[in-house]
């Protein structure tokens, strides 16, 4: 009898400081605590352990067949929200009503057992996700088709490559077919082709009228798949509305944090064995100003304890909505030495960018061999300044197109050579 599929009211989740993981102590601590509690109470008031709200006063509705995207920085409460909705953890306050069968996908491959074969893991993982045996049997062929791993079905998954493993795991999950699907950043795995297939599966699930709640750092995916987006910051909803505008506000604020010195940024991943500590970008032009026709010069300072073996620097440049534009990769030209000194600056110079005026976002990554040493999303930004490339004062607007292309026009048979400007 409900007009909405999901209604969250006043949701809050309180954790003890130090993060949820630090909340478990030893038996001794608890015993000591228990013994001291009455004493402390006598001394005037209980000393409550310090706590923080991972989620606070969160309320929203999701209609039937609606796809809601949830964006926010790491630690903003996105995963906590999904965990509550999928019943993995309980809210401290408030409640959520879910009017239908809920399927959650918070991790790919939960419950997989390395010793079991692909076939066996399909059954096990399907059951863990909440499928009945008969349901798995019915969908078995479709699942196997989706994985494209028929030949390895009877091989233990410990012999699978990580890509194959992800493929198998996601395929089971993709066939869950609940009415309300809760998905946490699981599409960030696998190769590009498979990712595309997964996004396609989500899209078709949405078209079938399933309600989807979707957390992602992939802004283009949020914009492409979602009907509405919700931005969480410090456990609270900051903005809710059409995906494009929510994403834009979120990116704008993420860019703010991009002004912090790179060395002090905490929102990074990787094993930390080598870190990117500085970044600057300017044009190769004499005045250093970046214009649509400029070549970029990017300098990445890095630091490590020891020489950096097989370094790969990866720079992703995306537009103001965080849609990817360029990928610069030190392996593309393969001109860096195999071993770099423990500290230094690496420079990359590009060809002319031909970008329309506006803001661009830069993400940085440093790999050593296949190991991710450092990854800083939204490491910095730069502004492409307006320039009169055509000599007419005209310029295509950024919110319409990303690129500006040199061009010449004429009426056939009346070509006037030399007109038009190449940028």
């Amino acid at each position, binding site marked *: *009898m409900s007009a909405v599929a999901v209604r969250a009211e006043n949701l809050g989740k309180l954790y003890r400081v130090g993060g949820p993981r630090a909340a478990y102590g030893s038996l001794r601590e608890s015993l000591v605590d228990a013994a001291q509690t009455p004493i402390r109470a006598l001394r005037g008031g209980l000393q409550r352990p310090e706590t923080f709200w991972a989620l606070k006063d969160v309320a929203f509705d999701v209609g039937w067949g609606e796809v809601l995207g949830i964006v926010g920085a790491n630690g903003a409460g996105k995963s906590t929200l999904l965990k509550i909705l999928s019943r993995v953890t309980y809210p401290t306050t408030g409640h959520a009503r879910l009017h239908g069968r809920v399927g959650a996908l918070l991790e790919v491959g*939960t419950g997989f057992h390395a010793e079991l074969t692909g076939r066996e893991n399909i059954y096990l993982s399907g059951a863990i996700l909440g499928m009945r045996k008969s349901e798995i049997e019915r969908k078995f062929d479709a699942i196997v088709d989706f994985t494209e791993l028929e030949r390895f079905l009877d091989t233990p998954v410990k012999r699978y490559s990580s890509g194959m493993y992800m493929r198998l795991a996601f395929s089971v999950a993709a066939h869950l077919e609940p009415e309300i699907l809760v998905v946490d950043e699981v599409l960030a795995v696998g190769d590009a082709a498979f990712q595309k297939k997964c996004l396609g599966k989500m899209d078709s699930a949405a078209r079938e009228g399933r309600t989807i709640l979707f957390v992602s750092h992939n802004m283009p995916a949020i914009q492409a798949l979602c009907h509405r987006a919700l931005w969480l910051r410090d456990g609270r909803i900051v903005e809710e509305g059409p995906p494009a505008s929510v994403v834009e506000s979120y990116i704008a604020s993420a860019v703010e944090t991009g002004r912090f010195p790179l060395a002090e940024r905490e929102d990074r991943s990787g094993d930390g064995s080598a870190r990117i500590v500085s970044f600057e970008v300017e044009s190769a032009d004499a005045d250093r100003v970046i214009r649509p026709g400029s070549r970029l010069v990017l300098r990445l300072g890095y630091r490590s304890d020891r020489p950096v073996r097989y370094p790969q620097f990866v720079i992703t440049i995306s537009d103001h909505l965080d849609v990817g534009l360029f990928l610069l990769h030190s392996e593309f030209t393969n001109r860096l030495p195999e071993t770099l000194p423990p500290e230094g600056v690496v420079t990359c110079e590009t060809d002319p960018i031909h970008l329309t005026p506006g803001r661009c976002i830069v993400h940085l990554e440093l790999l050593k061999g296949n190991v991710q040493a450092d990854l800083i999303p939204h490491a910095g930004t730069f502004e492409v300044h307006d320039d009169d490339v055509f000599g007419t004062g005209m310029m295509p607007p950024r919110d319409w197109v990303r690129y500006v292309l040199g061009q010449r026009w004429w009426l056939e048979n009346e070509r006037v050579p030399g007109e038009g400007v190449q940028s």
Partner: protein
Amino acid sequence: MHEQSEPTLSRGGVDPPLDERQGPAARTTLVVGPPGGWQALDVREIWRYRDLLYFLVWREVKVRYKQTVIGGAWAVLQPFMTMVVFSVIFGLLIDVPSDGVPYPVFSFAALVPWTFFATALARGGNSLVQDPSLLSKVYFPRITLPLAAVSSLLVDFAIAFVILIGMMLFYGIVPGVASLALPLFVVLAYVTALGVGFWLSAANVKYRDINYVIPVLVQFWLFLTPIAYPSSLIPEAWRALYGLNPMVGVVEGFRWALLGTESATSASLLVSAAAALLLFGSGMLYFRRMEREFADVV
């Protein structure tokens, strides 16, 4: 958290209907809210996840002896080796009395249920912490994990039991009518193992000390159970207290049912059964209580 049935479901004007196969499950409303108070076992929820329980048991059995050379033979070899050691040390050297039964059968009849119980404590106690992402990344009734871990050991128990029968035939012992009561003692061992397994597994999530407690606990418990010796060694005055250990009832019962020893008194058996039920009930309540924060502390 509870579910309530709703007679109809309006889709708020969004057209494409979901396929009908989802049937009754689609007509429920789930309310996720702060938990309160002590809760008993949600049998309906476990029933709903019975296929998962089946697959978890199946996984345990399948994986347990993977990459071992002799595989399932370990299920037999563990109690059998202990029996050999006990027979030499207690039976031959120390000459512990064995109620008129050859010492090897006497101890093996106890070691078969005991090995089930001891392994159940270890496996059950670790069932939640061995794969933390099961607790933090997906919902299902948590109690299926210790339930599956303990239940899967019934398979090992059955294998070892066949050897026990073989040994009895070897020594020319033919069980009487009393052997019909044997399933009762298997149930008693199972219920006790589950009760302790619930306690240990739930506590282990929060206090990893339990990992170190389990081996010590198993060792103590071994000596508090008449495995190497007959319970007739225990002074009459202490028997009731002794019977508080449900495994006393189990072992006594096994020997009485299979070997015809004259040791089981119905009074101490009742004490054992009551203790087992108490362990089971309290373990279940404790588990349900701790369950709520599993995902947050694991």
